[in-house]
């Protein structure tokens, strides 16, 4: 198996930059331009920090490339890290949606190997399915316990994993 270089699509990143900028502006502008009540100022400041954090996260994603190899997944960027498939000890696949009927949502994969930091990738990443499939195989081979939710989400992607469900 050869290595594949994966990145978040530009369109997704720019949409996130736009959201972050809109949030920073909406929360920051009243703080700078108006005489705001101190309780509301606290709320706006919390919102400002949230969107600033989101902006930083988007920039981090912009400058990170993921290299999916036969033995590792390497996140190459400012906060880079490495996941070794043979030493994989954590796998969690979650589904989120902003709609009440839980449609049109996105997946988030969190994986980590012994002694290493977690890598979190969203389903908007090009080649997300390949990473999930490789991680699921590694989890199966290493006997990593998977939650009921993770198994259900894997099944919805057409990936079935043998082994015990995490009960403890």
């Amino acid at each position, binding site marked *: 198996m050869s290595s594949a270089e994966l990145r978040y699509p530009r369109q997704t990143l720019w949409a996130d930059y736009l*959201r972050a900028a809109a949030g920073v502006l909406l929360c920051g502008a009243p703080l700078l331009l*108006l005489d705001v009540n101190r309780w509301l100022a606290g709320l706006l400041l919390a919102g400002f920090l949230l969107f600033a954090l989101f902006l930083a996260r988007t920039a981090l994603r912009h400058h990170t490339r993921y290299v999916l190899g036969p033995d590792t997944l390497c996140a190459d960027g400012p906060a880079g890290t490495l996941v070794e498939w043979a030493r994989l000890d954590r796998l969690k696949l979650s589904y*989120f949606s902003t709609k009440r009927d839980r449609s049109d949502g996105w*997946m988030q994969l969190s994986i980590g190997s012994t002694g290493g930091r977690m890598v979190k990738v969203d389903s908007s990443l090009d080649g997300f399915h390949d990473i999930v499939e490789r991680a699921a195989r590694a989890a199966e081979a290493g006997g990593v316990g998977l939650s*009921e939710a993770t198994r259900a989400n894997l099944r*919805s992607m057409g990936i079935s994993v043998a082994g015990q469900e995490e009960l403890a």
Partner: protein
Amino acid sequence: MLNFIVRRVLLMVPTLFVISALVYFIIDLPPGDCVTSQIDELLARGDADALVRADELRALYGLDQPLWQRYFEWVGGIFRWDFGLSCQDTVPVSELIGERMALTLIMESSTIAFIWIVSFVIGVYAATHQYRMGDYVASFIGFVGLSVPNFLLALVLLYVGKVYFGLSIGGLMDPEYIDKPFSWGKFVSVAEHLIIPVIVIGMSGTAGMIRRLRANLLDELQKQYVVTGRAKGLPPMRLLIKYPLRHAINPFVADIGGLLPDVISGSVIVSVVLSLPTTGPMLLGALKTQDVNLAATFLLFVAVLTVIGMLISDLALAALDPRIRFGATSEK
């Protein structure tokens, strides 16, 4: 998760803007304004200067300005915690809502806690002891709670309290603490007076929640993974808490979004019946007299609490159950 929160928070802004505009314009739609009723009173008393006074009052409340201009002034004032003047007493809305909002928050928080604690205990007991005496008693209480209107229960308790026990149940504190600064004595008095309103307002919510929790938990307890867990020898309590209960409490979490708006608007009729100094009766009065600033401020709080409640309940639901639903589709 950060993506989720950011998208939801961003969605809140246009949602609240549209709601605030709709609320402000709809309250102002009926013919006349909040000065009309005051002038009618002056004319009835034979006041010759009533019409001149009307113009003065309209200028004072800003009613001589176009509606859109009043709306944007009201919205701009929100950042300064200045919601304009109320027509009822010619005082700033922020002063009027202060203590009432605090008392409403205390009363409704206590009601929510009462609903959750009582329904959780009874619901779990009824589901795990299906078709036993305890289950029948819980079901009976549930049906009674669902079928008796809150205001009727309030009236019955008022009557029984007065006639048989000589107690005055109305109000949220003893008369000597009204309009007095907060003190330990006032706190104790409020706590004592809270019991009846909390039971009255929380009765139907508790009954409904018991029924839903019992039904959900019974569904879960009959699933194969529970049978497997039992067969593997998992302790019953651990088995119950680990999965079935976690899935069955979804309605508790999903209801946060619906419960928070009640903090401001809910229990209006019960508050009127029990003479509770909460925001409900004031909102009713403001709507009747077309006090746009006061009514719109209350309704904006309801909207804010609704969207915050929805966000909290969705976040909690996502944390409780981050599974894709059958039929739901992900972006990629």
